[in-house]
């Protein structure tokens, strides 16, 4: 059980550091997700206590924003933009292609845990549509072929890293 709460020191430190920041809940959630990769549902009470707000309020914020996740993502997160500008350049087909290549639905994670596929609504790279974001790095003018190559590399490197572990 101790291992499953390995995130506890991180949460406590972040809450202590940021509790005095005005309107600090979003910065706290970002910091926790940045370090742990997600916001453990069991961490909600500690966050609520630290900010002197209800657990419902914390949960409400986590569930409101698309960025926050309550369970770990794959080792890589691929966001495919499906806003209008990218749609004008074939984004819907690109997203379908990604689903097919990875064998997952949108918001899904591959069985090997290597890649999570998410939609995103505008990356601000609209002059170079279609755009995707891989682990916070934006790539423009993405063809289906290029996407395949990138996904292959991600899955390959992820499984290699997994084997090394």
């Amino acid at each position, binding site marked *: 059980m101790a291992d499953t709460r390995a995130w506890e020191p991180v949460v406590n430190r972040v809450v202590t550091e940021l509790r005095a920041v005005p309107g600090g809940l979003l910065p706290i959630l970002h910091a926790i997700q940045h370090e742990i990769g997600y916001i453990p549902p069991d961490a909600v009470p500690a966050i609520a206590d630290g900010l002197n707000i209800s657990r419902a309020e914390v949960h409400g*914020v986590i569930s409101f924003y698309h960025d926050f996740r309550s369970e770990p993502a794959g080792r890589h997160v691929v966001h495919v933009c499906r806003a209008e500008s990218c749609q004008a350049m074939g984004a819907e087909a690109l997203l379908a292609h990604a689903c097919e290549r990875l064998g997952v639905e949108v918001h899904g994670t591959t069985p090997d845990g290597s890649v999570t596929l998410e939609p995103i609504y505008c990356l601000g790279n609209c002059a170079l549509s279609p755009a995707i974001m891989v682990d916070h790095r934006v790539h423009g003018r993405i063809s289906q072929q290029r996407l395949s190559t990138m996904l292959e590399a991600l899955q390959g490197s992820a499984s290699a890293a997994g084997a090394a572990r």
Partner: protein
Amino acid sequence: MTRVYVPRDSGALSVGAEAVARAIAAEAALRNLPVELVRNGSRGLYWLEPFVEVELPSGRAAYGPVTEADVTDLFGAGFLQGKPHRLSLGKPEEIPYLAKQERLTFERVGITDPVSVADYEAHGGYRGLRRALTMQPADIVEAVVQSGLRGRGGAAFPTGIKWKTVLGAVGDQKYVVCNADEGDSGTFSDRMIMEGDPLVLIEGMTIAGIAVGATRGYIYLRSEYPDALVALNQAIKGATAEGWLGRSVGGSGKAFELEVRVGAGAYICGEETAMLESLEGKRGMVRFKPPLPAIAGLFGKPTAINNVISFASVPLVLDRGADFYREYGMGRSRGTLPIQLAGNIKHGGLVEKAFGVSLRELLYDYGGGSHSGRPIRAVQVGGPLGAFIPESQFDLPLDYEAFAAKNAMVGHGGIVAFDDTVDMAAMARYAMEFCAIESCGKCTPCRIGSTRGVEVMDRVLAARQSKDPAAAEESVALLKDLCDTMIAGSLCALGGMAPFPVLSAVQHFPEDFGLPTAALAAAGR
């Protein structure tokens, strides 16, 4: 030492600018050539990115689009001396796309090192704030009123009038908040400023703080812009070190401190009251107005909220005067608008022009037509809540009032082009779907209406598929009724304007909705 510019702009990075910069540094080291790499903003000619510039005694020489693989060849050809190469573009400022623009707000973007305060000041930076510090707050506000500057975020409310309200409001603490939640598809001018000239935004916000009596500012930045976050924080650090931010701005004794806060992927937080809720650490739920944020905004205090481009236009107004700025433009749309060409367009990028330029000129003279080479069938202006405009209306001038008269909006100046393969019924469905995904859920017309809208559009698409015009017509009638309810009954622009792309798609492209021949004939098809 030869100075070489490779953009740090995330658009340039998205097509390999980082690898190009590394390759140039490595090749220079290998050849033992003294090269100073400057990571500038983008000139906004995205089809030519990575756009590399070399500084020569005679000015700059540009090359692009440069790939990592071209670098050795460029050195071999003598690009450090500005020698010709197949990627030569000549002097950047003489490229017609740039030469024909009227760059005011973007005057430094691509030219300076974005995070160098010294470079900023050497190119006219902080002259506006220096001037403002010699003026009375009411006179600063009056200069902004006189400039005719209207909010560039989309709503086009006069910036100076907003500031006047905040100045006149009573509060022990006031705030300046920059709405940098640029979520509209087809827009990226805020991002380009934040990555390419963040100090002009910081200067504009500081002037606003001095003008309205606010000592604290926040930039609410969308999380999709990690590179802008880095640039803004570097620029804030630099400005603070030089005394342009902090307890005594420019030695004036007046305090102004600035902090960047990152959103979490919610389109609705671009609505100003939802943004305030988010800044306060809550769900991004839209607030009822009144009270206006100018009276009771962030943490209940008087708050001046403006878009990135609005703030970034202010230093120039103070530096060169309100009259200089208002000379540009047409009608009640004064000054320039940084227009963004996006979607299926050959030459996508940033075009800053005085108001009054036509869509046709933008799409063909600047944009070069569609990227696919097929005819442009429709454009959407002003983001996901903006109307679709057919080719027959491409002579419309970019002017807030001219667009409003056509039930369209200029918004934040983003233009998304679609070629003739676009399915306008699918786009109408997407507009409703997007509204359903991003609705904050506070008001029923938006929360429920958008979901019903998706369902009705699914029925339209099914009727079209099964060639049942009567069923399509029935569903389209219901769709229009639903749109009326959303427009009239929604609390904010999301539910209140999401119907505009839907209705404009039906109005201008009825042939995509599987309607009966009689209905199409009535629409002139």
